[in-house]
């Protein structure tokens, strides 16, 4: 079996090496990637979409169909983690956690171990107990609003600077994970419960697809934002700019909530009970 794997790896590696000389040279202006559509994007994207950032224009407008399925892939990854990692059953091993008061060390006693119930030095703590740390909490409270504001800025400013739905969503999701780390998982779950998180992820995908369907209903092609001009009350070029913002918001919602859900499942082994 291992020999078979070696043969396969060598065979495909050899094929790849054999195909490498056929690639165009680095930065070759006559390469296929630089001859077909790239010059059109570079020359016309500002006039077509009123978006100075060519990357955003290409990502969310010219190849918006591709980005729609990228968002769907992220949503599907979140769902796959729900089915793979979520543990709905009762806990297999009943263990108890104790804190040693003088040192603050946490002990986990598995079932059948000697329980230090009678000692005054040990304090029984429940499965959601987390060490209280004033410094980390205060730093978290101080920094979090600015991180979240910056995330919204990255989403909204993707037209003009590097950024957009994916990047802003990741920053916002990281801010929520930082909240879970600096406070505890229970209060994060209070703000964004597991079910609501997954529903918002679905709503994010729905916003993207819904924008496309709306264009279809208004007489344009699927994801042709110029059709929204009448609805938004702007000219077709500006409508494409606004349409990009609409789908970016959908992407940001999906990415944020999928990131937070993944953290929930991975940090707690799918039980959502132990605050990290």
């Amino acid at each position, binding site marked *: 079996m291992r020999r078979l794997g070696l043969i396969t790896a060598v065979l495909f590696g050899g094929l790849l090496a054999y195909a490498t000389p056929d690639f165009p040279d680095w930065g070759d202006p006559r390469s296929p990637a630089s001859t077909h559509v790239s010059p059109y994007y570079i020359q016309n994207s500002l006039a077509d979409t009123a978006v100075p950032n060519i990357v955003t224009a290409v990502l969310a407008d010219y190849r918006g169909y591709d980005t729609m399925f990228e968002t769907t892939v992220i949503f599907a990854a979140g769902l796959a983690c729900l089915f793979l990692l979520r543990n709905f059953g009762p806990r297999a091993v009943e263990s108890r956690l104790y804190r040693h008061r003088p*040192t*603050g*060390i*946490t002990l986990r006693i598995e079932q059948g171990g000697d329980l230090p119930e009678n000692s005054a030095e040990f304090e029984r703590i429940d499965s959601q107990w987390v*060490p209280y*740390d004033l*410094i*980390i909490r205060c*730093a978290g409270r*101080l*920094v979090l609003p*600015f991180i979240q504001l910056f995330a919204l800025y990255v989403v909204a400013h993707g037209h003009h600077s590097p950024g957009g739905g994916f990047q802003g969503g990741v920053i916002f999701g990281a801010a929520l994970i930082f909240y879970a780390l600096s406070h505890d998982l229970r209060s994060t779950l209070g703000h964004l419960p597991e079910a609501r998180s997954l529903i918002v992820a679905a709503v994010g995908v729905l916003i993207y697809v819904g924008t496309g369907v709306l264009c279809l209903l208004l007489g344009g092609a699927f994801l042709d934002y110029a059709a929204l001009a009448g609805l938004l009350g702007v000219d077709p070029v500006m409508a494409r700019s606004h349409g990009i913002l609409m789908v970016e918001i959908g992407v940001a919602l999906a990415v944020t909530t999928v990131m937070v859900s993944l953290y929930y499942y991975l940090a707690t082994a799918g039980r959502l009970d132990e605050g990290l």
Partner: protein
Amino acid sequence: MMAVLTTLLLTGGLIFFLGGAVGILRFPDFYARLHPAGKLDTMGLLLTLGAMALYTAAGGRLGDWLTAIKILLIVALVFITSPTATHAIVDAGVRAGLSPWMREDEGTEHDLAA
């Protein structure tokens, strides 16, 4: 003038970074190694980013000043978060039961530098 000041600040920042790197490699145990990691890297970052902000602001236009202010905002963020992160790591070490290195421990299994 501005170039001289920027060079001085950058050099100072790099000296702090060098000290931090040497400290992480040479100090005896977990807690002592976090000491240069937390303090010297923060100071080195403050000096190098300050030099960048000065260099940018020397352009004198409004856009240059805005960029300099953004760099200073990064400095403020790092000044809050970097010591907090070091504190969190040290706290996790204490809670996990790792005892600090002492002089009389030399040569025993606690001596992580060996």
